[in-house]
C-alpha cells in the first residue's frame, strides 16, 4: 500500500473548506439566500436524532424515544484554488440547538436573517452567536406588505450592539446576498484587527 500511496494521492490541489452560517427563524429565507449565491443547487442532507436524548423540554413525560429528522441545506462557493466556502442554512426549529453547536464550530461568521413579519423569530439566533462569540451581521429580509423598519428600530428590537452591522437584504437577489456576505466578512476582519479594544 505504501508504494501506491503516491499514486493514489490526488494530483489536483485540495482546497481548504471553510463555512459561513445562515441563521434565522422559520421561513426567514435561509434556503433562498443559500440558493441565490451558491454555485451548485443547494444540497440537502438530514440529521437524525433521538429526541429524548437532547433534553427537549416540551415533550416532558415521554418515556419512549422518538426519532426526528431535520434537514440541513448547504451551498458552495469556490473562492479560489485554495479555498471553498460552504454556506449552511440552520434548521429553522429552535430545538435543534445541538446542531447549531457543530455548525458554529470553526465558522468564519454568521448571517442572521431577520424576517420583518416576525422579528422575534431571530432572537434565538442572535443570542446564540453572541454567547458563542461568533461574529455575525443581521440581514433584514423584507417581505411584501410587512412593516418597514429603520435600522435603529431593528437594532433596538434585537438589542444588538452598535458594532454589529444591520443591512437590508432580499434573499432572492444574488447581488443583495453577495453584499450581505461581503458585509459579514468585512465585519469579521475588522473585529479581528489587533487595534480593537477589549
Amino acid at each position, binding site marked *: *500500500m505504501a*508504494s*501506491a*500511496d503516491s*499514486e*493514489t*494521492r*490526488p494530483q*489536483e*490541489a*485540495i*482546497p*481548504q*473548506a*471553510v*463555512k459561513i452560517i445562515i441563521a434565522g427563524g422559520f421561513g426567514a429565507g435561509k434556503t433562498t439566500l443559500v440558493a441565490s*449565491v451558491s454555485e451548485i443547487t443547494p*444540497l*440537502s*442532507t*438530514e*440529521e*437524525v*436524532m*433521538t429526541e429524548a*436524548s437532547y433534553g427537549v423540554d416540551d415533550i416532558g413525560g415521554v418515556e419512549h424515544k422518538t*426519532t426526528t*429528522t431535520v434537514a*440541513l441545506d*448547504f451551498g458552495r*462557493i*469556490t*473562492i*479560489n484554488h*485554495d*479555498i471553498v*466556502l*460552504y454556506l449552511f442554512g440552520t434548521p429553522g426549529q429552535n430545538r435543534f440547538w*445541538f446542531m447549531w453547536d*457543530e*455548525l458554529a*464550530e*470553526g465558522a*468564519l461568521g454568521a448571517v442572521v436573517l431577520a424576517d420583518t413579519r416576525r422579528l422575534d423569530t431571530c432572537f434565538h439566533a442572535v443570542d446564540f452567536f453572541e454567547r458563542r462569540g461568533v461574529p455575525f451581521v443581521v440581514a433584514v429580509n423584507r417581505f411584501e406588505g410587512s412593516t418597514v423598519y429603520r435600522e435603529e428600530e431593528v437594532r433596538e428590537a434585537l438589542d444588538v450592539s452598535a458594532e454589529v452591522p444591520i443591512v437590508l437584504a432580499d434573499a432572492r437577489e*444574488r447581488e443583495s446576498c*453577495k453584499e450581505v*456576505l*461581503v458585509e459579514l*466578512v*468585512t465585519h*469579521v*476582519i475588522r473585529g*479581528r484587527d489587533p487595534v480593537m479594544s477589549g
Partner: protein
Amino acid sequence: MRTDGVHGHEAAADGPPEETLRDPVPNTRRHDGEPGEERFLRPFAVTAGDPGAHAVLGPEHAGVDMLSLVVAARVPGRHEWLRPEREAILDHALRARTVVELAAEVGLPVGQVRGIVAAMIADGSLQRCGPSRPLGRQDILHAVLAGLCSL
C-alpha cells in the same frame, strides 16, 4: 484513479481486514438471493459495521467533522454488497470530498456518514486529506472577501 496498488489491496481485502464483519455463514460473500439468508444477514450487515443513525456526536468521531476532507484509498471490494452505504461513499470519494457533501450525495444523514467515514478512515478505506496549502485565518478571510467581491 485505479492503480495496481489499489487493485492489490482490493484482492487482499477479500474479507474485510479488521472488521467485526466475520462471516456468520461460510457462503455469504456471494449474494445468491436466497430469502432466508438475506433475512439472516441484513440486520447484521447494516448495524454491525456502521455506527447507528443515533450516533450523532459520539466521541469516537472526534476529529471527523462535516467539513473534514477524505478521499478513497481503495476501490469498493467484493464484500461491499453487504454495506452499500460504504460502497457509495467509496464511489463518491474518488476525489477529495467533505463529509457533508458525501452525506448529500449518498443520501444519508450527515451524523451517520460521519460515523461511517470515521470507521473507514480507521480501517484504511478512506484517507484524510488536508488542504494542499493550509492558510491562516486572516489570509482566509481576506481571500474570501476578495472572492465574494468578484462573484
